[in-house]
């Protein structure tokens, strides 16, 4: 889990570049206080947990303080002007709580499956509910954001395979497939762990591979959660009867 959180924090390296670039400017839109615009504090709290995470390789006693650092650092970043919008910090926040829970509750293995499933359901729900709107159902949003000119292998391939007049229809199908897969992921969370966790991990992997390499900052933690759920897991039926 720690490895996944370190990767999540390192993938969007451009945010560090932005922090340095914007250090000589002040943006005041009447929302963020000076604490949550502080450049130095941002850099410190951004970098500290990954450093601690790497040190846990050499000193396992750091696992609990590192998990706590992840939780508080993620919360701070979710309230900071540079990073409030990044879903990476949402997943590292919950992953930090999950890690701390695992460290303090090693005897509650039967609850690990429930918690892992809930974390994954919550993550997928966050994507599904906001897409139940005409712009996503007819593919217009994805068409505008990705299909017209996004330079990424999957969209470059689709633009090479289809005429530009066909792309809105392709975007419609693509958008509905994404929605269907996310809904399926939520429903699958109620079935056997041998199927659900590998399937959901594959789903999250596909999201990053097919859309944006930077999405690995968001999907790495859910993949790790699914892996842990698979390894330390019972089916809901076994939990009920145990």
């Amino acid at each position, binding site marked *: 889990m720690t490895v996944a959180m370190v990767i999540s924090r390192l993938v969007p390296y*451009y*945010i560090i570049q*932005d922090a340095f*670039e*914007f250090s*000589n*400017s*002040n*943006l*005041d*839109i*009447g*929302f963020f206080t000076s604490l949550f615009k502080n450049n130095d504090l941002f850099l410190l709290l951004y970098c500290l947990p990954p450093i601690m995470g790497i040190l846990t390789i050499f000193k396992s006693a750091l696992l609990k303080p590192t998990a706590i650092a992840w939780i508080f650092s993620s*919360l701070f970043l*979710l*309230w900071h*002007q*540079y*990073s*409030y*919008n990044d*879903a990476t910090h*949402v*997943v590292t*926040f*919950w992953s930090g*709580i999950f890690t701390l*829970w695992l460290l*303090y*509750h*090693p*005897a*509650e*293995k*039967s*609850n690990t499956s*429930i*918690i892992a499933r*809930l*974390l994954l*359901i*919550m*993550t997928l*729900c*966050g*994507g*599904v*509910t*906001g*897409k*139940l*709107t*005409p*712009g*996503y159902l007819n593919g*217009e*949003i994805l068409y*505008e*954001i990705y299909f017209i000119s996004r330079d990424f292998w999957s969209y470059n391939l689709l633009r090479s395979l289809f005429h530009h007049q066909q792309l809105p229809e392709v975007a419609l199908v693509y958008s509905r497939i994404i929605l269907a897969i996310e809904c399926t992921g939520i429903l699958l969370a109620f079935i056997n762990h041998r199927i659900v966790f590998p399937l959901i991990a594959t789903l999250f992997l596909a999201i990053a591979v097919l859309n944006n390499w930077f999405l690995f900052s968001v999907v790495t933690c859910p993949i790790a959660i699914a892996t842990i759920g698979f390894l330390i897991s019972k089916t809901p039926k076994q939990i009920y009867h*145990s």
Partner: protein
Amino acid sequence: MQASTKTSPYTIAFITSMILCVIFQVAIAVFPQAAEFAMKRFHLTTDHKTIWALTQVIPSMYNFENKVKIEEIFDNNEASSYEFYVNHYPARMITGGSGRRHLLKRSNSKVTLESSYRDVSVTTTYHLKLRVTADGKKHLTIGDN
């Protein structure tokens, strides 16, 4: 000796917090007021920052139809503009990345954020003025309408 597998209160709290997040996410699809609040969250215009802060931990990726329009206002009141869709948090076009980079080169800008979810839509306009102080630091602040 068998280890105790009794569910601790922390486990119950952990599970409850996730269920509350899912309830909020589902509420967006069911109640227009929840959708409106969630879109205001994206625009940084919620009435209470504490509630904004608490809801920041709720996953919300690729939510709503978000459009950003950036206009540069010249001294003769003419304007040049362009607009585009973003996946979430349209206000990030002001606070960071390429959007902020662009605004830091314009002395007078108007940024209009529009988020829609079925029949609900939220529009927010930020009028921004850029000034450079004697120490060379750039300040982008809310200007007059």
